[in-house]
């Protein structure tokens, strides 16, 4: 108890009391800053003076690296240094005069509370102190190096916009705003993280997003009491439903067009400073199979791709289990020639099929994990080891039979078809395999029933996780199993888009028929 109190005291050590305000003496004010930022040599204190008006003793305080130096030099220091202040302005209201007439900056505010000033400095703005004034000017001067807008690595497309989010929340919001040019786009900021003070922005379209979901989201965000938020992944885990499920119940994307699309369906986005991944809620299972490219390509082709992804997840989770079940429990289900060829491949292999499958699936995931973390040149070496050494040699050495390699490869490729579902596929695959190795095909079916029960039970912000998957009727199934053409998708998705269901009123097929 005493220790805990000590830690709490230590946490308080560096914070500023709220009612602390500036004094008239410039030196005293500077001393206060120096005190607070002791041992922080990035704090720059630049004192200067107007040559025509000696009373105009100024001081700029900012953090090196966080500000745009050119902006400060040309628009703040130069005007104050070189203008003849004694003639041009009234010297009795020097600070106001500076704010209104001299400093060339789009955002200058007068503040006297010390804690606000400290926050300003930390966030990358500059403060201007003036001798004999107990007010200070906050000058907007943020400018730090940031990554340019590139195509995101996590979601490349052949057809579609190539811009991706960056680590800067302002840039990210700009990217969204550029897609949706309406004042209905609401951006609500808050800071989360007791030490990091990370900016988090709730982003939604008024009149589209359900108020209940918005309120629930705000409630959950307010409930977060954590010291640091370094990526949106923190928030994702802290606000999600079904916290123990292998399935994601909060969506994320690195692409502004995806987020814009989801906002337009009535979903709510959460943008977190420092993370290029923007979260969306509510998230349903069907979204794992949707790709932004679906909406830009021919709808028939897009529907085919989407079906492939669904089949991919199904096969990737089930194939090893079904193979094992058939080969070790239900050999009568195999066509005779296949039985003979599998049996021939297994001649001389010492390990049981179940072990070989577990082993190979593990090896596949080991290679995948290793290749992800490695820099590209070494990643290629990992690939060679994976394909040559493990793929070929292991079969020739008769440690694992060839069909097992084929099954592992098919399952491994198939699971990559829907990257968002990757985590759940890997976990469920092993679970099903375990069941199948004990109970045969019955075990697999048993596992499928359990998984379905779980999926039917999960909700994301009150929306059923399996929304739309169980029905192809009406507008429900228009964007689930297939992607209907835009002219026929007149309604937004059920429940999520319920507030304003009508998307557009185009009912006719485009184009004209020859007469």
């Amino acid at each position: 108890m005493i220790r805990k109190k000590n830690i709490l005291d230590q946490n308080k050590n560096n914070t500023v009391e709220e009612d602390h305000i500036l004094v008239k003496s410039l030196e005293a004010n500077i001393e206060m800053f120096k005190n607070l930022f002791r041992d922080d040599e990035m704090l720059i204190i630049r004192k200067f003076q107007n040559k025509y008006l000696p009373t105009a003793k100024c001081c700029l305080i900012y953090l090196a690296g966080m500000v745009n130096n050119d902006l400060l030099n040309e628009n703040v220091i130069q005007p104050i240094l070189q203008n003849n202040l004694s003639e041009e302005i009234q010297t009795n209201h020097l600070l106001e005069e500076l704010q209104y007439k001299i400093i060339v900056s789009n955002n200058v505010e007068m503040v006297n509370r010390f804690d606000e000033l400290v926050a300003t400095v930390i966030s990358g703005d500059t403060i201007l102190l003036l001798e004999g004034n107990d007010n200070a000017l906050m000058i907007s001067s943020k400018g730090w190096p940031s990554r340019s807008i590139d195509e995101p690595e996590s979601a490349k497309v052949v057809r579609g916009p190539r811009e991706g989010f960056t680590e800067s929340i302002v840039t990210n919001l700009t990217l969204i705003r550029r897609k949706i040019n309406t004042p209905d786009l609401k951006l609500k900021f808050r800071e989360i993280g007791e030490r990091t003070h990370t900016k988090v922005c709730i982003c939604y379209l008024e009149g589209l997003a359900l108020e209940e979901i918005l309120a629930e989201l705000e409630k959950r965000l307010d409930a977060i009491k954590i010291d640091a938020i370094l990526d949106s992944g923190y928030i994702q885990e802290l606000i999600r439903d079904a916290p123990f499920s292998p399935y994601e119940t909060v969506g994320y994307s690195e692409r502004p067009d995806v987020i814009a699309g989801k906002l337009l369906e009535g979903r709510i986005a959460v943008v977190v400073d420092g993370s290029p991944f923007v979260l969306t809620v509510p998230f349903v299972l069907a979204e794992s199979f949707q790709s932004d490219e679906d909406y830009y390509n021919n709808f028939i082709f897009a529907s085919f791709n989407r079906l492939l992804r669904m089949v991919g997840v199904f096969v990737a989770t089930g194939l090893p289990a079904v193979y094992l079940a058939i080969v070790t429990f239900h050999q009568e289900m195999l066509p005779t020639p296949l039985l003979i060829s599998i049996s021939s491949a297994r001649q001389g292999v010492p390990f049981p099929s179940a072990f070989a499958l577990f082993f190979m699936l593990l090896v596949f995931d080991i290679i995948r994990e290793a290749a992800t973390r490695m820099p590209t040149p070494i990643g290629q070496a990992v690939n060679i080891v994976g394909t040559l050494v493990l793929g070929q040699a292991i079969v020739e050495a008769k440690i694992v039979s060839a069909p097992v390699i084929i099954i592992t490869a098919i399952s491994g490729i198939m699971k990559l078809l829907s990257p968002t579902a990757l985590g759940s596929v890997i976990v469920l695959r092993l679970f099903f395999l375990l069941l199948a190795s004990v109970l045969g095909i019955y075990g697999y079916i048993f596992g499928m029933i359990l998984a379905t029960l779980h999926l039917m039970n999960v909700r994301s912000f009150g929306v059923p996780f399996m929304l739309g998957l169980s029905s192809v009727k009406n507008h429900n199934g228009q964007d689930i199993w297939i992607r209907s053409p835009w002219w026929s998708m007149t309604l937004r998705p059920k429940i999520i888009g319920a507030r304003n269901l009508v998307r557009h009123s185009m009912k006719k097929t485009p184009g004209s028929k020859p007469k």
Partner: protein
Amino acid sequence: MKKFLLLTIFLFINVMILAGCWNYKEIEKLTIVAGVAIDKGENNPFRVTVEIVQISGGKETKATSKLLTMEGKTIFDAVRNAISLTGKKLYWSHTKLVIISKDIAENGILRVIDWYNRDAETRSDVYLLISKEKTAREILEGKGVTDEIKSFEIADTLKNEKSLSKAPTTELWKFINDLESPGISNVVPTVNISTSENISTPQVMGLAIFKKATLIGFLNGRESKSVLFVKDELKGGLILDGVQVNNSQPVSLEIFKSKTKMEPIVKANHNIEFNVNINTTVSLEEIPTSMNLTDEIKLKKLTSRTEEVIKKRVGDCIKKVQSKYGVDIFGFGENLRENNPRIWNQIGNNWDDKFKELKVNVKVKVKIKGSGIFSQSIKMGD
């Protein structure tokens, strides 16, 4: 909550123990039986020969066959004796056929098929065959032509029998089904060995007639086709000898589609006649002489000639079966039972006697549909 969890775990364990498949066995450890031949033993009532698929690994899959013979007092006894030879239990799920020797069949095959139908490891969708050779084992001896494993080769033959139609195909379940139902007797294809150039290959041709479960006689390949005609089981095959143009060599007609309708006509005093209407679509496939195929009169002649031939053959076949064997292999009785159960209940008891004197009117309608991909026959230049 704790109670609920406990209950769930309990149920889960129960489900595993009570419903799971508890026989994990590796695929390469199986001794796959491809086919069985059943003969009379020397010292025991049964001698069972199984053809085992021997699979060798390596880069190329190689499956060869090996015969294994064991004797026993019953079939199951013999089969279990196999363990003393192979060290493993035989795996029956991929067995394609059961060949039964004449000797056994003449004494009734119920004893043979009962185990096969009853046991959990065997399947009842195997083909049943009767060996016309001295023993059934001979059929499985030697090498196959297209397949190393003879049983698989014979099974393929039976599968493709529909475009030859010289033997019926009878699966075990069908045999038992017909055995149990009144008004129909079983036919089982026969297999013999044909030797050419020192290679002996099994040949499936003709059928064996059963009275209940006992073998009483055989029909040859051509007669088998007539039986298939009546039973409406004909899917293809040729009609040739007898169908002639201008008394020269026969033409080949391939059967495309054939539909037979059997219809009982009940007359006074429970006298029953049967109308058998055969509708066949054929195509000219081979014409040895030059003939103008667009000539309607000639085509009509050919059509009526073909109709006559089929009518005669089918009629002869029915008569032969009626007089010689006296068992209803065509299923007239079954048809009557389905169409007119009232009459059947009155006369069904001695159907075999009735069948012997049954009057059957065969009507054949042939339609020549085409003449291959040419409309003309080959013209010889001078």
